[in-house]
């Protein structure tokens, strides 16, 4: 834990290094990332190697700083107060003789951990600045704007053997049994419905409910539903062709169909 290597972190002054000049504390905490950042800024202002800094002094400075800040802004974020409380505790652990029964870390160990955290954060902040100061691609240096690309001609060979092919087919055949089949011969189709409705339209029928347009033997259950669906779909198709009109006076009410008015013969078929 010598601080020999950490000196490099002080090559360049951090941005806003002067902001925590202990004589002229700026009480605005907006610029800080959190209590640790405040501590680090205070520590830097001491211009001593962080490894040799007095944590006790630092704790006092922080408490003064936060005390002053609090007089101005009572809504100070809780984390700053938590840190203040913890530093008071740390001070007591450092100043009072250590209790041997104590399970937790000793006062000096706590102080050392804080010191380590500050040095590590300082290293991080310094590294971040060094990174950002590097010539950056797309900002300071540029790559080829329009790389032609290196053509790689890929010839793909597909690996499948005849055995793979045959077993795939075999597996497929096997699974055929599981496919659900719906017997559809018995259902009413749209072709019949079209023919029927066209005939009815040809006779110039007046408004007639959909129910009375169904085939003579609509059946029941699924078969009956197919008759209704086919007739309705055929009705829509004929309406599209301009042969009939459809109306439904209210939602979910009965649907009526009639032949187009004879006054518009142009709309009729030949």
């Amino acid at each position: 834990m010598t601080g020999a290597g950490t000196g490099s972190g002080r090559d360049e002054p951090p941005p806003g290094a002067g902001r925590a000049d202990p004589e002229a504390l700026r009480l605005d905490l907006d610029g800080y990332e959190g209590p640790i950042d405040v501590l680090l800024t205070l520590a830097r202002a001491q211009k001593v190697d962080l490894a040799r800094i007095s944590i006790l002094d630092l704790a006092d400075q922080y408490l003064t700083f936060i005390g002053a800040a609090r007089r101005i802004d009572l809504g100070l974020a809780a984390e700053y107060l938590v840190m203040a409380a913890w530093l008071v505790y740390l001070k007591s652990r450092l100043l009072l003789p250590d209790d041997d029964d104590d399970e937790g870390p000793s006062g000096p160990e706590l102080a050392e951990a804080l010191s380590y955290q500050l040095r590590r954060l300082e290293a991080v902040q310094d590294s971040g600045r060094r990174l950002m100061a590097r010539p950056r691609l797309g900002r300071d240096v540029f790559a080829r704007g329009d790389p032609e690309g290196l053509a790689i001609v890929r010839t793909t060979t597909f690996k499948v053997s005849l055995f793979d092919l045959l077993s795939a087919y075999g597996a497929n055949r096997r699974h055929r049994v599981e496919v659900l089949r719906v017997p559809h011969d018995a259902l009413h189709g749209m072709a019949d419905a079209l023919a029927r409705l066209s005939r009815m339209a040809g006779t110039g029928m007046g408004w007639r409910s959909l129910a009375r347009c169904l085939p003579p033997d609509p059946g029941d259950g699924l078969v009956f539903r197919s008759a209704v669906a086919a007739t309705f779909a055929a009705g829509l198709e004929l309406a599209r062709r301009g042969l009939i009109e459809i109306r439904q006076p209210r939602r979910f009410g009965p649907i009526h169909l009639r032949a187009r008015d004879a006054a518009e013969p142009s709309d009729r078929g030949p």
Partner: protein
Amino acid sequence: MDQDLRLIEAVLFASGAAVSEAALAERLGEGADVAALLDDLSAHYRGRGIRLCRIAGGWTFRTAEDLSDRLRLERRVSRKPSRAAVETLAVIAYHQPVTRSEVEEIRGVAASRGSFDILLEAGWIRPTGRRNGPGRPTTWGTTTQFLEHFGLESLADLPNLGELEAAGLIDPRPASAVVAAETAPG
């Protein structure tokens, strides 16, 4: 090296498209002899791997044409098609000519676009015509390449269902035989 020349070199390098002499002049500022600088730069790259070219009213760097063959790299990639693709191929082989939706129907699975793409890429299937009927869908069959790849002389060489079963490739449950007989082509 002349600073303006360096700048032109960097600008042409970094630009995503050919740069006009006017644009170069604007960058260099008053008094720069753009034409002379371009001549210099062009001379410098003569005979190298890169060349300064005049394209579409502007200037740009391009790799030397005579290197184009050596710039290409051939790679042989071996791929194993997915199970779905293999099954799709099998269905097409046995049921051709067959439409995409018939393949889906036989496989009992809806999505097969990816499989068709792979089989087309492999050169194993081809459109053989159109089916009369709503939408006139394309029908598919296998290619000569397909026969070559699988060492078949003709499609007649494909084992029939009975032979597949005898070879243990079909579960000989009675139901499957019934269904298979029902849906066999022809």
